[in-house]
């Protein structure tokens, strides 16, 4: 295990080495090798169908739901091999939180949405739950908006609030990594801005990987950016470098809007 090294953000949180992925006969990821830094935001950009979401969903093994898939190569999170047969999937998914494209709160109260994870996963005692709920909602910058209606339906919240609730829900498991699959694509610009502010805030404590179609968003929130095309990682580097001085001409063509 890599372990937690204070003041050493260069120790990568996630490492992929020649990682490939197949849907049946179709190979959708080709020998991807990359590292994601700890406590930083890394954006993955690329045209539709380039494999960026597939890659993201490999990190917490959400692709297990799809029948007839296969992987090759290494993928490690915090030093643990993600596809090792000995991996405890439940605790792995607790360590690697995920926020989806569309807000997907449970049809329950705001309180229960947060309390559901830690309570069922027996991380917390029942008496600690109100405190955990408040802490997570504060962390997700939602507390002030919902503190008087904790026991009302989460579905009564606006889309942006729901998405922040989903972030709070993921935080309740005390993960180290947060995966975000186009978290703002269903939100209006103001809600998007709030979520982006939240991402910048959260990167102090979490390793964040965000898949996005929105290049401005990548430029605004990400420290590093990787560009995927046709199942391959084309280029990865400091966000500023990717957007101002891309080394690869495909990358340049994509970010200048010539394809994708």
């Amino acid at each position: 295990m890599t372990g937690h090294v204070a003041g050493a953000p260069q120790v990568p949180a996630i490492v992929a080495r020649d990682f490939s992925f197949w849907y049946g006969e179709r190979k959708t990821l080709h020998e991807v090798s990359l590292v994601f830094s700890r406590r930083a935001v890394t954006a993955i950009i690329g045209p539709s169908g380039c494999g960026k979401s597939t890659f993201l969903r490999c990190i917490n093994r959400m692709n297990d739901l799809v029948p007839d898939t296969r992987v090759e190569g290494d993928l490690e999170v915090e030093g643990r091999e993600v596809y090792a047969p000995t991996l405890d999937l439940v605790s792995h998914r607790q360590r690697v939180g995920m926020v989806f494209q569309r807000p997907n709160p449970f049809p329950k109260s705001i309180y229960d949405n947060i309390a559901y994870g830690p309570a069922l996963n027996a991380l917390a005692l029942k008496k600690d739950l109100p405190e955990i709920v408040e802490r997570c909602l504060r962390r997700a910058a939602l507390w002030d908006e919902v503190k008087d209606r904790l026991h009302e339906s989460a579905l009564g919240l606006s889309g942006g609030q729901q998405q922040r609730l989903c972030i709070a829900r993921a935080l309740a498991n005390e993960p180290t990594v947060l995966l975000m699959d186009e978290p703002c694509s269903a939100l209006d610009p103001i809600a998007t801005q709030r979520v982006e502010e939240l991402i910048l805030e959260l990167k102090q404590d979490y390793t964040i990987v965000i898949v996005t179609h929105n290049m401005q968003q990548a430029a605004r929130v990400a420290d590093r950016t990787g560009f995927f095309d046709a199942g391959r990682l084309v280029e990865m580097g400091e966000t500023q470098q990717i957007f101002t001085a891309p080394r690869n001409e495909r990358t340049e063509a994509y970010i200048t809007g010539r394809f994708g």
Partner: protein
Amino acid sequence: MISRRALRRGKSRLMVALMGVAVLVAVLPLFLILGSLILEGASSLSLSFFTNRPAPVGEVGGGVAHAILGTLMIVGTASLVGIPLGVAAGLYASEYRGTRLATITRFVADVLNGTPSIVIGLLAWTWVVATQKHFSAFAGSFALAMLMVPMVMRTTEELVRLVPDALREAALALGYTRWRTTLVVVLRTALPGIVTGSLLSVARIAGETAPLLFTALGSEYFSFDMNRPMAALPLVVYKYASGPYPEWHKLAWTASLVLIMVVLVLSIAARLATRQRFDRP
């Protein structure tokens, strides 16, 4: 010359009117049935009807309390077995769709759903009554449960399928195990609909007569013994309606009214059960 717009509007009106007529024709029988039941049966409706056994032939009054009790017991026992089985099978067929067992289960359920209830009754007779060598309320419950399972299973399956995948993913991504996701998120979300479906299937089997003819048989007495023949409302209706005495006919009408009321109450309860707190903002 009529403008195209007027022609279009005319056609639209005609179609709407035709559909209105179709709706009327469709709901008319319900009101006719209710109307004649009330007309014929309501006059004998009294407290004693709900508390007494039938009076001997020739005497007026008497009730069907023994049959109400019997229906509650037979249908209750059937529900106790049929609903959990149906829900479990439906959950499996939906959450593990694509597996061979799920496909077979679904097909069998469809066949069972289409099987006439009298055939189910005969089956229950062969399996339970003939082997035990006596009629029993249990055999009746067995037959009704067999009718219930495929009904509940199909409704459950359909409703569980409506639960968005996003919710399953949300739960799994939080580190829920598959079974916990199914029970706590999927089943819980689909529950109001499943409750409705189950209540409706209870209402359906409460009125079944054919399967009870060969199993519960009917009785004139109060009985709590599931191992012996027992009265039931549909059997009372069947016996009294086909009997020769006018008092019996009257009793049959009133018993039908009670039966319909039981079904109505269940259906309304089913409606109320769907009003969930969190399913919409």
